[in-house]
């Protein structure tokens, strides 16, 4: 079971790092939101799943409390992260930031 924890932690660290690199390397706001949201959500899910496995292994009152809190944190992240990034992307577009080298921009045409 410990191997499972280490594997989850490693996967989480790799994908979170990918999110941070994507945030630095992509050329405009929208693509940065792509990279940052997808990778940090996926990475954090695995990091927190490691804690879930650890709590389940430990058992007892503390272990169960740990599992519940970690699972709730997981649910919150999964619900709020895409919603927040969606709000930011829409705000960026309404603030007049053009997508970098866009082939087509249907949202601009609507106005």
């Amino acid at each position: 079971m410990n191997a499972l924890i280490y594997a989850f932690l490693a996967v989480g660290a790799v994908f979170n790092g990918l999110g941070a690199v994507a945030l630095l390397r992509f050329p405009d706001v929208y693509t940065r939101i792509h990279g940052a949201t997808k990778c940090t959500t996926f990475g954090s899910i695995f990091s927190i799943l490691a804690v879930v496995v650890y709590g389940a292994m430990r058992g007892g009152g503390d272990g169960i409390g740990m599992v519940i809190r970690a699972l709730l944190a997981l649910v919150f992240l999964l619900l709020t992260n895409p919603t927040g990034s969606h709000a930011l992307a829409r705000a960026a577009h309404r603030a007049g930031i053009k997508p970098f080298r866009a082939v087509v921009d249907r949202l601009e045409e609507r106005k």
Partner: protein
Amino acid sequence: MIVELSFGIAAAVLLAYALVCAVRLGVGPTAADRAVALDTINTLVVAIMVLVGAAFDLMIIMDVALVYALLSFVGTLYIARYLEEGLR
């Protein structure tokens, strides 16, 4: 023992990533870029808090992580609203 240590190491690694995101927070170039960087750092901080709670066996930090996740979401929504409409 070694498991707790590995949680601590993972938290330290995520903290390093949060500092990398802080570079984007500093250089911008637009306000939206900074907001995205802040949102990413918030996600990382939630994960860090959960890992630290497991590493040091502090249940209270996990409670803080839950509240932080929800409040940072509300904060992101307000920043987005500000970007859309300015200060109103």
